[in-house]
């Protein structure tokens, strides 16, 4: 993997946090630490972050992407309308990732992924995702954007 765009990482600001009433901070903190170590600018909002705080922070920091964690199962309720909120706030193109345990119970992943893509997330990541994979995918997506219309 490792698309050769490493040099641009320092220009990219990512907002991270755990959405809703969700207290699962461990994975989000490890992810934030790893993104920072990989060279991205990271704005870490921590656990229990309402949707509008993500948007506010993204505007304030002119972020390029938002990394939403949801572990506790209620993400499907918390994340509804997240893309719309972004658009309302003028964040039209912002890259939206979501990851964790995105629904209640053990459900078919393809189905879960589709639900989140329908909600407007660019990508959804299943439980068990390792940070290396996230970083690789970010590089790819930002490389594509740099080469594309963005």
């Amino acid at each position, binding site marked *: 993997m490792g698309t050769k765009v490493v040099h641009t990482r320092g220009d990219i600001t990512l907002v991270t946090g*755990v959405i809703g009433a969700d207290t699962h901070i*461990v994975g989000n903190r490890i992810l934030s630490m790893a993104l920072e170590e990989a060279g991205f600018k990271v704005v870490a909002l921590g656990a229990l972050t309402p949707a509008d705080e993500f948007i506010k922070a993204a505007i304030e920091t002119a972020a390029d992407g938002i990394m939403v964690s949801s572990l506790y199962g*209620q993400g499907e309720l918390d994340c509804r309308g997240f893309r719309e909120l972004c658009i309302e706030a003028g964040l039209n193109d912002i890259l939206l990732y979501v990851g964790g345990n995105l629904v209640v*119970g*053990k459900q078919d992943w393809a189905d879960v992924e589709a639900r989140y893509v329908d909600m407007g997330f660019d990508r959804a990541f299943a439980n068990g995702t390792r940070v290396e994979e996230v970083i690789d995918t970010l590089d790819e997506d930002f490389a594509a954007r740099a080469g594309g219309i963005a």
Partner: protein
Amino acid sequence: MGADGNDIPLSAAQIPADDFADMRRENLARWPTGTEVDLDEAIEFHQSLPKHKQLGWVMRKAAAEGRCLTQPRGGFGTLELQLELMRALDGDGMADIVPTTTDSYTRNEQWSQADVGIEESKKEGRSMLNGFPMVNYGPKQTRKLIEAINKPAIVLSGTAMPRLTCEIGFAAGFTGYLGSGIAYTTSYTKDTSIAEGIRNYQYLDRLAVLYQEKGIDLHRRQPGFLTGTNVPPCIAIAVGVLDALLAAGQGVRNYGLELGQTLHLIQDAAAIQVCGELAHEYLAAAGFEDMFLPVTSLHWMGAWPQDEAQCAALVSYGGTLAAIGGAVSVTTKSTHESYGIPTPNANAEGLRTTRMAIYMARHIRLNELPEFQAEADLIRRETRPIIDRVLEMGDGDAALGAVRALEAGALDIPWSPNRFVQSRVMPARDLDGYLRVYDPGEMVFDPDVAEIHTERLMRRAEAEGVPYDQNLAVTSVYEISEPLDRLFPFPWGPE
């Protein structure tokens, strides 16, 4: 003055009866179902329950007979789903203690959002909430759960805001309630101060004592697992003892202590032993001689692997560890753990696997093993100074001490989301599989104790050929969740 009790200066002292009456009145008015709570009627209902449906009695009996009881977790978003679940856990799962986990909106007192969740769940035909919204249903409806089963029931509600939920739960007929001010506030909240969390649980404990005064022996329990993420025994036990002091201060006498498993047979057995010991020691020293303080062991609370076959070993070993450690009960998980809330069936299977594991190991005790004794001794040497320091910082008051010690980091919780906690302590697993402390943050260990931790973890770094750095802690978060081909491959080729 507000009747939430927040204007009384924080201390471990019992809330006076009349203050408490005011607090209750105000509290119950916060949501319509609060008005359904009728203490006298509730006490009558509790009195009508047979002994084997009273968790206080059942825990005492299990401890006396040297049994290890099984208890799962479990909550779904509607009464119908929850009834079905509890019947399955009682029946198919043979749970000795049947739980009701509340959903996260309830835990955060977002009852209108929980209402939406109930509606959505009904519409979608599946649970959209991660637990049962007890407050929304109210005590009368919720009591149907108690009536549907033949075992004692416990409320599991990981929150720093239990005030209304506990009123509903006890009034409905639950005879056990998990939760405590220090443990839950440090691991389930971001902006709630420790003082506020402690006050809220003082309310809960004080309420339990209202029942106790009428002869109802409710079982209160402390969630020692904290953030569930590689919490070393010394921290879990210290918090457990402090929470127990707070409960005892309100008058509680039947109080369980939980410990998340480290997954090291000897460390877990030693931790269970020392937890019971130190709890009795400190409670007695504070003048509470007549406390019943059983220890509950919890299936691995950190990240689980995705492979269900691998998970089956964690489930089963969880029973083994609890039985051999002499825990009075074990709280189980299932092979679905890494994915999401288990189906009733998977949950029941986890219970049965655990039960069989307990059956097979029920005779085994390791107390005379020198390695056990060394570890127990180490845990004592780690834990006593932490508790002593906290009490000292509180001028003898556990409530004040906890607030100040957490702020200063003299007591610290790994991976805590709470901003009133330093969360600088970093645990990691050593080469022999023991959980040790890589970075104590501001916590102070005796030099010889600190030396042991450092030496053990250096040996691991050396053996693995990795730097002695924080990554030892991060890899220890992932470790148990790693797929087997990464964790424990065939070692000799093919090259």
